[in-house]
């Protein structure tokens, strides 16, 4: 029961995230214990075929048919229990110029089955944020502050071994470029199976060499590939990644990530490297997964249209901080932060012949940030105080959070 932070209620009774500084534990919606949430795994259904992996526990383990759980598609407000609560997360990359502050005090709350988009320009810390949640920040980068609560456990306090067990099993991640994310040297089926094997859904060596376990591996892999919509998986699981198209590769990645039925899927620009039509297919697949299994999704993207299409909630990041967060409709229709407004103005619209308005200036050097608002140098509503002090992330119109001195309340 360590999840009692958060401030303002979300649109459907869900809580929107808040800064941990202003959110002392208080009376709030009663919430399930972390342990109960864990059971949700066994309730979630296979998203098309209605089967799910059962953890290997001796001889009789197998893929048991699961109940097609009705509660997997229950409305969002009923599954409001936070599976992931990130607070004050800060990550730096030491360089010769000083510490690059890639992530600066990010707070996020993800309820079960939530879909959250993180949008922002390149280099604003979106990907670093996801990698930090996985505790996979590449050397020499490191997380310097914050906590990452996953169903009642602080991931920051886990040992390397415990964290490894969380990765892929509880929290899975897919990356931007499927072409480079699949290992070129291994068959696609083996890469999917590896996910199952490391978490004990398939036996490891040497038991995996027996004929029985090879057959079982084949069945599970083919089933997973079918679920993500890869045609003729019976033959294709023996192929290598380069024999797949980009869209099919991304489906393989998703199958790999979802093999162990994680509670959270972190998707780092999963459609950026794909054609527009394929993008839509991949997004549809992710939506389907979210709706049928209740896997919560954090979608990092620089494409606001994708966020609008796909997510219920959006967090806009700038220079390592969340500058505006709230329900997607509210943020897109009536942006409060000048950066969000700028982002929206720079999107081309079909049928409009108006010239686009880019955001002037450049993203600040994250190794040499001043004391003031990091957006101030590019801001069109800048005030004197913007150069002196950091604005706090505060609730605006009861539905969202904005980090701006010049905001209207």
């Amino acid at each position, binding site marked *: 029961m360590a999840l009692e932070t958060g401030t303002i209620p979300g649109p459907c009774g869900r809580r929107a995230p808040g800064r941990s500084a202003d959110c002392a534990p208080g009376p709030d919606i009663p919430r399930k214990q972390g342990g109960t949430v864990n059971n949700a795994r066994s309730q979630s259904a296979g998203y098309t075929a209605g089967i799910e992996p059962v953890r290997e526990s001796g001889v009789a383990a197998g893929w048991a048919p699961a109940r097609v759980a009705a509660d997997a598609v229950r409305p969002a407000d009923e599954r409001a229990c936070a599976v992931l609560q990130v607070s004050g997360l800060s990550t730096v990359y030491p360089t010769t110029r000083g510490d690059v502050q890639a992530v600066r005090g990010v707070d996020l709350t993800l309820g079960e089955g939530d879909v959250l988009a993180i949008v922002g320009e390149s280099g604003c810390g979106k990907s670093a944020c996801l990698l930090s949640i*996985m505790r*996979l920040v*590449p050397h020499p980068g490191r997380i310097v502050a914050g906590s990452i609560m996953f169903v009642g456990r602080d991931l920051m306090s886990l040992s*390397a071994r415990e964290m*490894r*067990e*969380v*990765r*892929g*099993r509880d929290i*899975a*991640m897919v*990356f931007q*470029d499927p072409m*480079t*994310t*699949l*290992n*070129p*040297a*291994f068959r696609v089926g083996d890469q999917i199976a*590896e*996910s199952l094997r*490391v*978490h004990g859904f398939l036996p490891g060596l040497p038991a995996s060499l027996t004929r029985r376990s090879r057959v079982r591996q084949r069945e599970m892999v083919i089933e997973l590939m079918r679920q993500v919509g890869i045609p003729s998986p019976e033959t294709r699981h023996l192929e*290598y990644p*380069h024999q797949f198209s980009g869209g099919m590769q991304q489906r393989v*990645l998703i199958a*790999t*990530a979802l093999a162990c039925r994680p509670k959270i899927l972190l998707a780092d620009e999963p459609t950026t490297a794909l054609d527009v039509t394929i993008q839509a297919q991949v997004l549809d697949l992710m939506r389907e997964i979210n709706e049928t299994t209740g896997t919560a999704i954090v979608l990092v993207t620089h494409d606001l249209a994708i966020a609008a299409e796909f997510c219920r909630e959006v967090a806009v990041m700038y220079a390592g901080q969340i500058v505006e967060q709230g329900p997607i409709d509210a943020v897109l229709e009536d942006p409060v932060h000048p950066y969000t407004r700028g982002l929206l103005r720079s999107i081309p619209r079909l049928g409009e012949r108006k010239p686009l308005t880019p955001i002037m200036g450049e993203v600040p050097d994250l190794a040499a940030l001043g004391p003031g608002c990091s957006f101030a140098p590019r801001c069109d509503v800048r005030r004197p105080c913007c150069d002196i002090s950091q604005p706090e992330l505060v609730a605006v119109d009861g539905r969202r959070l904005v980090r701006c001195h010049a905001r209207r309340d």
Partner: protein
Amino acid sequence: MRRTHVQILERVLATIPIALGVAIAVFIFMRLMPGDPVDIMIGEAGGVTQEDIHALKTELGLDQSLPVQLGRYLAGLVRGDLGYSIPSSRPVAVVILEALPATMELALCSLLFALVIAVPIGVVSAVRQRSFIDRTSMAASFLGISMPAFWLGILGIIVFSLHLRWLPTSGRITYGFEPATITGLFTVDALLTGNMPALWDALKHLALPAATLGAGVAAVVARVVRSSMLEVLRADYVLFARAKGVVERAVTIRHALRNALIPTVTVVGLQVGTLLGGNMIVESIFGWPGLGRVVVDAIFSRDYPLVQAAVMVYALTFVVVNLATDVLYTYLNPKMTL
């Protein structure tokens, strides 16, 4: 027959023109060297008349014009007749087959030594980049690349044979220890016949020459493994493997090293050339009765048939090693076909 098999067969057939080219080139280059075998032989013997010289040249066919000599040589090659060694009058094929196992044993052991040392060093240096181990091993590999084999070999003899008296100075095996001949490789034969004293003795004789010959290869391979590991460790699929929850050691070995080996195989294939070419020096230092020493002696005595045949053996070995490299490459890299 599978596609790969057809391709391998094509490659084998393609060696025929290569062999022909090598034969002609060696023939011409040998003739370009000043002096001929008869001159060398009469220089060593005394009281030889012009008639004797002429008779000897006629007997050896050296009085014929060069195109005729070349034609005869090539005709012999086609029949599988490599001719006779000039000074010893022994069949060239026999001389080469006697020396070849020693050379192969030395080359294989050097390669094994190099790989066993270099691959783990390369991997550890990459995983712990800029650590003490990394810096030390890269400095050592720099030494290994720069140090000539004749110097390293002699240093080894002085330290391990003369001062420490651990290892013999020269030879392949102590007289009387030879195992029954099966493959001609003493270590393998000793293993096959269960002759442990012979195995131990052969290994002691192998240690210094194999280390001397393998040091340069190990140095190059360690650097290649390190740099390709460094590249591969930054790849997305390595991060993805970690995100799947794969144990770090499996990430390094299964995902990273497997891919880092692709460029390494190419380099190792090329280094086999060093093992064969460099063995003339190492075999001379350690009195190793292999092909390298045979070739050096044959060149000094202008033993045309023997040099021609030996160089042909070297060339064919190169072709075979290249083919093996390519086959291994396609196995490691599914994107490649032969």
